């Protein structure tokens, strides 16, 4: 999970829409408070800005171009239901206690990060989860794009404040770059994203509420680069080389609805997030029906089956039903609590770029650098049987390296099906003609067709054993090695794997990013060794693909990007180093009847039911329901499928 989480956040960081970086607070620059707070640090920051005047630009409001066309996204529909009520404490479990409350640096990529960051903080602008490619305003009141100079102009909402009451100002976005470029945060990827020249080229201040961000080149989805969050300079007055330890348990003032107070953190046990009653955005169009609970209580329950029992007792309000066992065996449709309407079962089909669950073949390893062998392996992997037996037929086969991007995904391409004869045919082309005593193919040199299959997903163990057993039919031996997440991520980061299974969660990008995963920039060092710490886990290293990806990245024409995207998908299919696995086009939720959701349940791009915080309680329905449970009262049985976003 760590792998996918990491990638999730990395992707969020750049190409796209939900670039959520840092909550923060305003630096108190020009107002008189700045003098009160240590000026040593502020001076240092100022000096840093002055050292790169071409990147940190200070202008006056008169310099702002006059002919800009400002937008504010207010024509977009609300998110959530107007019936939502405020109040109550929502109980949720976390499998581990977070290792830090920082948003960046060592260990900051844990799963709790989403709770305090992605699901909470307000950025400048946000991608609307129901309307593709449109943004709604967050901290920014309005924005304008100058396509010529690839610059986005932003005007902050003057009301916007951090949870400690300090207003959000332009300087906090300058400080975002300062902090993210600093080596002290020990996050090289983040450093690279915020380094001028990678994606951004300059940030320009016009006044305390107006600034602009300039991108390297024009992109159809340029606006997604403006989905930035400020960093409160006043909070980081002690920022320095000990950042990692100094800020380990400090909760940065946030622009979001929920905050964590030091007394609400019980290490190893629980964390409570409280709704800020005076939250600046509480009456704004896109936030007023969301963030409804007064408190979010996160209890550490290390064992998922224990958590499930806690849910059945009513100690937790709702749960994600990820595994088929939970959905079909532990909470079947005829379970007494479901039958009597106390617990509702919901299936929601969402529409998001699909996580790339699949096998990554290290095409830089001996034998695996032979395309025929890779294609043979493609045919030897029986994902169909996994989907049928392990996922009970609910999941679908992933088709390409980039599914779920609407028109940018290839319309017809499909993953190679399980086919023993075809696999044998391709293996034979590569010289593997004979079966050994154990049925595994050998070539003339006596080499066996045997590779290690590594992964960090213990929960899919049963699925992998199916893969291994079926591959043996095609004369391919896969030696399964299930490791813990950290070790497995280290293994693929160092490119020491042979065949690795991993699922990368991708951000809500408009179109796929092929460069990270498939460009030779990220595959090979100059000395010819595999390049570590990049996301090119297949070590795809092909001049033709490189050229296409380069054109794709440089293009600013949507139609051309679309065509190239399809073409690259095809080329990667031919290269055959990524074997598409499965995709779950939905998520499943079980909830107690006192948890209410909007009529259409959730937004199109939600990954899980709590992500957009659209749910709510009605009065003290919880107590009433639990009382009714004792008296034997029953309610209407509710098993619902929301398939308004289902494709096909």
């Amino acid at each position, binding site marked *: 999970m760590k792998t996918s989480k990491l990638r999730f956040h990395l992707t969020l960081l750049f190409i796209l829409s939900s670039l959520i970086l840092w909550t923060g607070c305003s630096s108190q620059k020009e107002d008189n408070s700045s003098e009160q707070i240590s000026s040593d640090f502020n001076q240092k920051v100022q000096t840093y800005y002055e050292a790169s005047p071409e990147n940190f630009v200070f202008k006056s409001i008169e310099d702002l171009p006059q002919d800009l066309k400002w937008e504010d996204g207010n024509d977009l529909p609300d998110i959530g239901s107007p019936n939502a009520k405020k109040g109550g404490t929502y109980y949720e479990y976390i499998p581990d206690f977070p290792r830090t409350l920082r948003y960046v640096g060592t260990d900051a990529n844990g799963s709790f990060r989403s709770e305090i960051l992605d699901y909470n903080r307000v950025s400048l602008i946000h991608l609307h989860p129901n309307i593709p490619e449109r943004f709604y305003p967050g901290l920014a009141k309005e924005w304008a794009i100058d396509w010529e100079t690839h610059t986005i102009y932003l005007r902050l909402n003057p009301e916007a404040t951090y949870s400690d009451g300090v207003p959000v100002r332009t300087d906090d976005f300058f400080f975002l770059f300062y902090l993210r470029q600093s080596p002290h945060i020990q996050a090289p990827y983040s450093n690279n994203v915020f380094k001028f020249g990678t994606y951004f080229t300059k940030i320009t201040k016009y006044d305390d509420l107006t600034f602009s961000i300039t991108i390297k080149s024009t992109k159809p989805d340029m606006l997604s680069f403006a989905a930035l969050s400020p960093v409160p300079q006043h909070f980081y007055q002690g920022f320095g080389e000990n950042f990692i330890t100094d800020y380990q348990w400090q909760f940065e003032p946030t622009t979001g609805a929920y905050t964590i107070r030091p007394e609400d953190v019980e290490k190893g046990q629980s964390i409570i997030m409280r709704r800020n009653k005076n939250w600046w955005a509480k009456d704004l169009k896109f936030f007023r029906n969301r963030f409804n609970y007064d408190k979010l209580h996160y209890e550490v329950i290390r064992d998922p*089956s224990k958590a499930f029992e806690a849910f059945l007792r009513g100690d937790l309000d709702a749960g994600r039903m990820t595994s088929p066992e939970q959905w079909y065996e532990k909470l079947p449709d005829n379970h007494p609590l479901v039958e009597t309407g106390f617990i509702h079962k919901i299936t929601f089909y969402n529409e998001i770029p699909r996580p790339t669950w699949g096998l990554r073949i290290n095409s830089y390893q001996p034998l695996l650098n032979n395309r025929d062998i890779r294609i043979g392996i493609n045919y030897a992997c029986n994902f169909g049987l996994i989907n049928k037996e392990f996922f009970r037929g609910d999941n679908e086969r992933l088709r390409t390296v980039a599914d779920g991007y609407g028109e940018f995904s290839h319309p017809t391409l499909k993953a190679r099906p399980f086919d023993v004869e075809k696999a044998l045919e391709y293996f034979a082309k590569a010289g593997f003609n004979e079966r050994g005593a154990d*049925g595994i193919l050998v070539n003339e040199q006596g080499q066996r067709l045997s590779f290690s299959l590594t992964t960090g997903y213990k929960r899919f163990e049963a699925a992998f054993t199916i893969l291994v057993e079926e591959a043996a*039919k095609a004369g391919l031996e896969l030696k*399964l090695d299930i490791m813990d997440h950290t070790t497995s991520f280290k293994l693929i980061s160092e490119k020491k794997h042979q065949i690795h299974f991993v699922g990368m969660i991708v951000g809500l990008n408009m179109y796929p990013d092929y460069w990270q995963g498939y460009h030779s920039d990220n595959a090979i060092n100059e000395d010819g060794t595999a390049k570590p710490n990049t996301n090119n886990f297949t070590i795809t290293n092909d001049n033709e693909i490189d050229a296409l990806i380069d054109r794709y990245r440089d293009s600013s024409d949507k139609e051309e990007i679309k065509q190239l995207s399809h073409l690259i998908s095809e080329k990667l299919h031919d290269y055959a180093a990524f074997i598409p696995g499965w995709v779950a086009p939905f998520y499943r939720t079980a909830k107690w009847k006192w948890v209410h959701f909007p009529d259409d349940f959730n937004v199109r791009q939600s990954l899980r039911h709590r992500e957009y915080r659209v749910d709510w309680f009605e009065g003290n329905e919880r107590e009433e329901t639990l009382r009714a449970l004792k008296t034997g009262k029953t309610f209407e049985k509710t098993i619902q499928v929301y398939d308004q976003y289902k494709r096909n």
Partner: protein
Amino acid sequence: MRLNPLTQKKLKRFYTLKRGYYSFLIFAILLGFTVIGELLVNNRALIVSYNGKLYFPTYTAQKPGTLFGETYSYEANYRELKEKFKTEDQGNWILMPIVPYNPFENDFRENEKAARPPSLAQQHFLGTDTTGRDILARLFYGFRTAMIFALGFMAFVYFVGITIGCAMGYFGGVFDLFVQRLIEIWSNIPFLFIVIIIASIIRPNLGILLFITAIFSWTSITYYMRTGTYREKARDYVAAAQLMGASTPRILFQHILPNILSTLVTFMPFTIAAAITSLTALDFLGFGLPAPSPSWGELLRQGTGNLYAPWIVMSAFCAMVTILVLITFIGEAIREAFDPKKFTTYQ
């Protein structure tokens, strides 16, 4: 072989302790089964009679389906072939083992769940697990692994423990003092953490697990051996042997060891039980043998996580209890048979 009359007496005594004796017999038979396991629990046929020719595929190289008139080149599915031969009725026949499944294959059936309760008709006598694998087959081969582990463990632990313990007792003095301190330090290293750390770095196999478990387990043996050797060393027969010029190893292993060994023999069954428990615990926690190795701990883990299929956890639990009870009975009987209070050598 001529046994020492004392040993003969002990064995006779053991024979009269019926509970332990019968436990020993059952256990020995089970052990015997594991040696010929492939003939009892296997998806390969014992005998195939095809077109007038006999095949014995159990211990040979994999036979492709094409050999028996099938269209596929991977290993013949003998269960399906058996049905096919039956319906064709052309004189071909197949004899399958009692349990016609191997511990790795997923036996999925149309419109049925992977985890199915025990069924005579499907010849899944203890049912299938959550990926459709036969539980009896996994229990059986899990038992074999556990026994290999336990015997290897015992051999290692006793060899190292006896050697070091005897040396400490015999040489005494500074050597004894020094090694005892070393042992104290060594035995304070938290074994489980080491296993967890190692399991996260490398993929543990049976040998590695055995080694890690054993190097942290030999210390307790040294205590018994050391005191035993100290006691025996002071006796006249040792002095006599020394006077006659016997070498140190000869004195240790020929003279002293046989006299202190009886204590150790009584520990052996419990060492085996401890080894089985450790391996199962490690597998249960997920730090044991890599998937998809059949193991009891893995079955227990799967069973406790999927209580809707109670036959999984029940099978593993009952097997575990049975084996441990058998071993305990044997151990008690040995202890009683070797009790020096009954057969003391000194008047």
